[in-house]
């Protein structure tokens, strides 16, 4: 049998809104941000690691390479988030026309397997580690099933080291490493809890360190980004891991919730181990919006302390990369303006501002669908920079304009200059 396999990451688009695309092109740091966060997701690298060595493996990132649909592959594996789904479906159809079996996995196929099946020979709905060996076994018997779903919980200690060696070293400088999987917060806009349940699993620390050492052998100066939705849910595990990172001489980034700022010991350990930035989902600075995000109101409870806690982290020389969403039912032009004030006055190192996007599998989508507020747009518009539903207190056009203006303000030269001076003065005080 033809044991040549292609692992394909379909082309994605940052935005399809022409005005937002124009604004992005004018921002001083847009190029450096694209470069800095140009990492390649882990899922295909783990699939490759789960594939026996007697397969000829090819990794194709369609953002950089064309797919040769006529190349003789025995099997094709594609992963896609929702924004990539439309393109992924065309890829599945192209290979299908040529009689090449193609399998789609990833977040989108996991929440909408029936839709995905219309375009692919097989759909893998769930975590790959349990599913992929069965796919290969059935392929060997020429008996691929239409759907593959997990039969057992994935044991993270058994996840093999990702095949980082398949990545083009010149192309990617941010390398993702995974230590944990899952998130207990179950936010209304997020599908992580839908996919992983509310369970939170950790990998053995020695496995994580081994991955980092592999990355260090392959790249001279990698930026290591932890792919975990929240690395700090199990605090003792996080402490032990960060302690081990100290001796590795790496620069790295993590994701957390704001409660990390209350843990002085952990913050100090992060700084001493050369953590550059913490990505934190603040989501909103409007109290009524935050109240509705999750049942435990974990974000709302911190709202009044956001500023003080951001300052505490940043004055240690660690940047806060704040994530915010606009388009909640409570949002108005005024609340969006206040968000801009908040970002500016707190000198956030960076901000990821997105438009509320009703991803399939999320509670937000169920609610908006029930109210007839979903706009008929294909999945390629689900990139977090475009309006895909009817906002409550704004028109879609008003929300899009407010979003575009907010970017111009937050990433405008004046704001970047003020933020840079803020951090330069912090570093001087730390000298």
């Amino acid at each position: 049998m033809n044991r040549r396999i292609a692992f394909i990451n379909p082309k994605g688009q940052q935005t399809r809104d022409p005005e937002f695309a124009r604004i992005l092109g004018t921002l001083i740091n847009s190029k450096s941000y694209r470069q800095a966060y140009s990492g390649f997701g882990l899922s295909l690298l783990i699939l490759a690691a789960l594939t026996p060595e007697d397969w000829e493996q090819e990794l194709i990132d369609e953002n950089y390479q064309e797919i040769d649909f006529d190349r003789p592959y025995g099997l094709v594996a594609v992963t896609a988030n929702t924004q990539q789904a439309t393109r992924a479906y065309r890829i599945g159809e192209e290979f299908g026309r040529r009689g090449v079996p193609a399998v789609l996995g990833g977040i989108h196929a996991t929440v909408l397997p029936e839709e995905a099946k219309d375009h692919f020979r097989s759909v893998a709905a769930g975590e790959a580690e349990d599913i992929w060996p069965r796919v290969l076994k059935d392929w060997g018997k020429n008996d691929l099933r239409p759907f593959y779903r997990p039969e057992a919980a994935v044991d993270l200690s058994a996840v093999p080291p990702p095949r980082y060696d398949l990545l083009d070293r010149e192309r990617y400088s941010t390398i993702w490493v995974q230590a944990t999987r899952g998130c207990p917060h179950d936010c209304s806009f997020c599908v992580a809890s839908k996919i992983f349940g509310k369970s939170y699993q950790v990998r053995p620390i020695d496995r994580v360190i081994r991955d980092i050492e592999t990355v260090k052998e392959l790249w001279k100066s990698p930026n290591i980004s932890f792919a975990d939705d929240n690395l700090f849910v199990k605090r003792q595990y996080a402490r032990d891991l960060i302690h081990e990172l100290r001796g590795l001489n790496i620069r790295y980034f993590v994701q957390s919730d704001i409660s990390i700022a209350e843990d002085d010991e952990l913050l100090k350990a992060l700084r001493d181990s050369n953590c550059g930035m913490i990505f934190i989902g603040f989501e909103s600075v409007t109290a009524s919006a935050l109240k509705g995000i999750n049942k435990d109101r974990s974000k709302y409870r911190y709202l009044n302390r956001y500023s003080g806690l951001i300052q505490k982290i940043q004055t240690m020389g660690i940047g806060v990369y704040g994530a915010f969403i606009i388009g909640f039912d409570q949002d108005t032009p005024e609340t969006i303006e206040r968000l801009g004030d908040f970002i500016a006055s707190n000198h956030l190192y960076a901000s990821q501002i997105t438009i509320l996007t009703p991803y399939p599998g999320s509670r937000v989508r169920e609610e908006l669908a029930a109210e007839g507020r979903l706009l008929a747009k294909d999945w390629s518009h689900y990139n977090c920079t475009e309006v895909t539903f009817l906002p409550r207190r704004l028109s879609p056009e008003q929300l899009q304009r407010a979003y575009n203006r907010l970017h111009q303000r937050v990433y405008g030269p004046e704001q970047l200059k003020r933020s840079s001076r803020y951090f330069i003065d912090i570093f001087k005080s730390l000298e």
Partner: protein
Amino acid sequence: MERYSSDEILDIISEISRIDRAEITPEVLIREELGIDSLQAMAIVARLEKRFSIRLDESKLFEVATVGDFVRLLQEKLG
């Protein structure tokens, strides 16, 4: 006016970025080749400002691409 040498600036970049001094040469790209992020670049500027008792124009930071650009930034200020 403080005196400086290019070597001293390169030493500072090496110390703050924790990158081996041998890899810090004027022509090397700080982001793409050394992996220095903008926060580390600000820490380097802070050290230079303190060491030479100057205040650099922070907007010039966005124009810095190579290690040599850092040296020129200081040259422009110190003459």
